[in-house]
């Protein structure tokens, strides 16, 4: 165990843990919103993240023609380019999520099959998407050209807060609170919450179930797409299996916070990001996953609904 690294690298670990945690928060929204309305674990969400990363890379490389030799952008061009990459990522991920729901889940739901069938269908879609992209890309990793120069905007102690990290934290927080407000304040948001509480009663109240479920997949998928864009901004690489480990981590975050619960995903994502960073620093990176899952098991032992599940029931999707 190496506690001295925490003393000397506390701020970088905290900031990087928060940035990673916020990416988990956005991805875990894709899991938690779908679970909230359908009681279904959408295993394909990790691949929805993966297609989002490819959308970002393809727009910057193929649409704008940038490559590894391109200088980072400035001013309006930077804003415009990154905006389009973000839009493409959210759109592709959102639409993919809706298509997954229509193709893989809707008919099963209409037929009244049990949840196990939907679960297998979710895993099947996940494999199809991953293998499809693997074949199309010949399994070769794709690097994303650097659009944003990574400079320090603020110095805390003797540690600089990098602009990409700051953007991740601020932008992901804004997106999360926007979704939270949307779900609690708008008519469609209320309909989503109503369906999550009782599907039958919602139908009796005249709510169009398919429309509400599609909207849920679209919002969850878009947030996962936004996370994919932020991921590409920081890590600048993707490959066909990029979603596996990060998707598993985000799913863990959702369970940790209380799956089906928006704010639970928020707390779970941040808790996971920070735990991973500090566990890797103190115990060694090889112990990171062991620590995370040990924490998860312990939490579920004492709080089966997740760490913040019961405290924030009112904001359940």
């Amino acid at each position, binding site marked *: 165990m*190496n506690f001295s*690294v925490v003393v*000397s690298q506390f701020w970088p670990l905290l900031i*990087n843990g928060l940035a990673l945690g916020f990416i988990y928060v956005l991805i875990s929204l894709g899991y938690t919103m779908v679970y909230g309305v359908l009681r279904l674990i959408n295993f394909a969400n990790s691949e929805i993240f993966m297609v989002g990363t490819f959308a970002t890379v393809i727009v910057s490389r193929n649409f704008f023609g940038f490559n590894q030799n391109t200088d980072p952008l400035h001013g309006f061009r930077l804003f415009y380019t990154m905006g389009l990459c973000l839009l493409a990522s959210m759109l592709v991920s959102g639409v993919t999520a809706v298509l997954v729901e229509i193709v893989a889940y809707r008919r099963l739901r209409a037929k009244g099959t049990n949840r196990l069938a939907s679960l297998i269908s979710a895993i099947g879609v996940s494999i199809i998407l991953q293998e499809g992209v693997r074949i199309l890309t010949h399994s070769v*990793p794709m690097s994303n050209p650097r659009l944003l120069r990574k400079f320090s905007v603020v110095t805390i102690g003797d540690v600089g807060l990098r602009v990409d990290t700051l953007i991740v934290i601020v932008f992901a927080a804004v997106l999360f609170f926007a979704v939270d407000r949307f779900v609690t304040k708008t008519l469609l948001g209320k309909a989503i919450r109503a369906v999550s509480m009782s599907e039958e009663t919602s139908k009796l109240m005249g709510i169009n179930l398919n429309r509400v479920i599609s909207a849920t997949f679209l919002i969850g998928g878009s947030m996962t797409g936004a996370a994919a864009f932020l991921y590409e901004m920081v*890590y600048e*690489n993707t490959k066909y299996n*990029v979603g596996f480990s990060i998707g598993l981590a985000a799913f863990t975050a959702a369970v940790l916070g209380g799956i089906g619960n928006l704010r639970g995903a928020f707390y779970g994502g941040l808790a996971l990001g920070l735990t991973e960073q500090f566990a*890797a620093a103190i115990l060694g*990176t090889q112990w990171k996953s062991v620590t995370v899952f040990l924490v998860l098991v312990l939490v579920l032992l004492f709080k089966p609904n997740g760490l913040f599940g019961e405290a924030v029931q009112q904001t359940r999707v």
Partner: protein
Amino acid sequence: MNKNTKRVLGVVAAATLVAGSIAITSAQAAVKSVTLVYQGPLTGTDAQTGQDELLGAQTAVQIYNDSNPAVTVKLITADDQGDGAVAGTVAPGIAQNKNVIGVVGPAYSGASIASFPSYKAGRLTMVSPSATRVTLTDPKSADNGYPFFHRVVGNDALQGPAVVRWSTDGVSSPKVYVIDDQTPYGTGLADAANAYIKLKKITKVGSDSVVQKTSDYTATVSKIKASKANVVIYTGYYPDGGALAKALNDSGWVGTFAGGDGVLNDAFIDVAGKAAAEGVKFTAPAVPFETAASDAQQAAFTKATKLKSAAGHVYVTETFNATNVFLTCIKQGKYSRAGIQACVATGTFYGLDGKTVLRFTRFGEVVGGAPVGGFQVVKGVIKYFGAV
């Protein structure tokens, strides 16, 4: 037994012997083509390594077949993605293919270990151009491939010290941080590097073990910075090594980043980005094809691969040499698995330059070891600096 019976039996025995000899001769005469297989990562995140190596095998076979031999060689491929789990499913099929008389490969150590049971059962000889884990030829290890595994490259016991020497070369007061990727290759090379660091009393300020396919290296970077390391040695493969080098560079860390042959690949520069890749050092028990090949061999390379030059492609020479071991045996009329095994185990072979002698120890190492080369990214291109 009376005299007549003895006479009849004698005639029958003689006839059987003659018939047997004719049958054997006919069978040998009937051989028109034999098959070798190249096994390595042809798809997957490490596909570039396998695709590069395949160029060397194709060139060797091209030269052999162009010499109009009585028995031609067909080269087929087996894609194990460099992954032991995949190799374990690929190897049984190769072993059962009776047309295959030798395996050029496996390329990776983990894939080799997973393939050994099938190839041992099928009595199929392997000559690897790049699997460097020490235990593969260690008689005391449960992982060894004796008596069917051979390799034309130096193992990690040679590369481990070389990567330490090369990475610390020119660094005053080196403080080394060693990171492995938890694979059989990565941990083996890290062990060899750590042993040399200890032996030479070089300051080691930390170590980490980061699983393959990790995307976020920020915690590792924080630890490296806290340790004040000025040399980082990464023993893994280029997709992850590139991501780590990029994360280190983005953090503002200044020092020498180095890796073994798993990281040596042009694709490393693409993954890391030009800024992070510049100055990165690599070692590999490899000699660039374009520096060792004759004009005729270069022409055969172009004919076989449709590429102008082998520059930027790794292990082409070593795969050429590994393939040539089999081709030499085939030239000597060895068309069966048993014949190939005996020939490879006892024969003397020559490398690409026609001078380098390759003979194998009982457990499959090159007699006398093989040199380890030093490479570095200079102005965005990987340059070879000779043996280190």
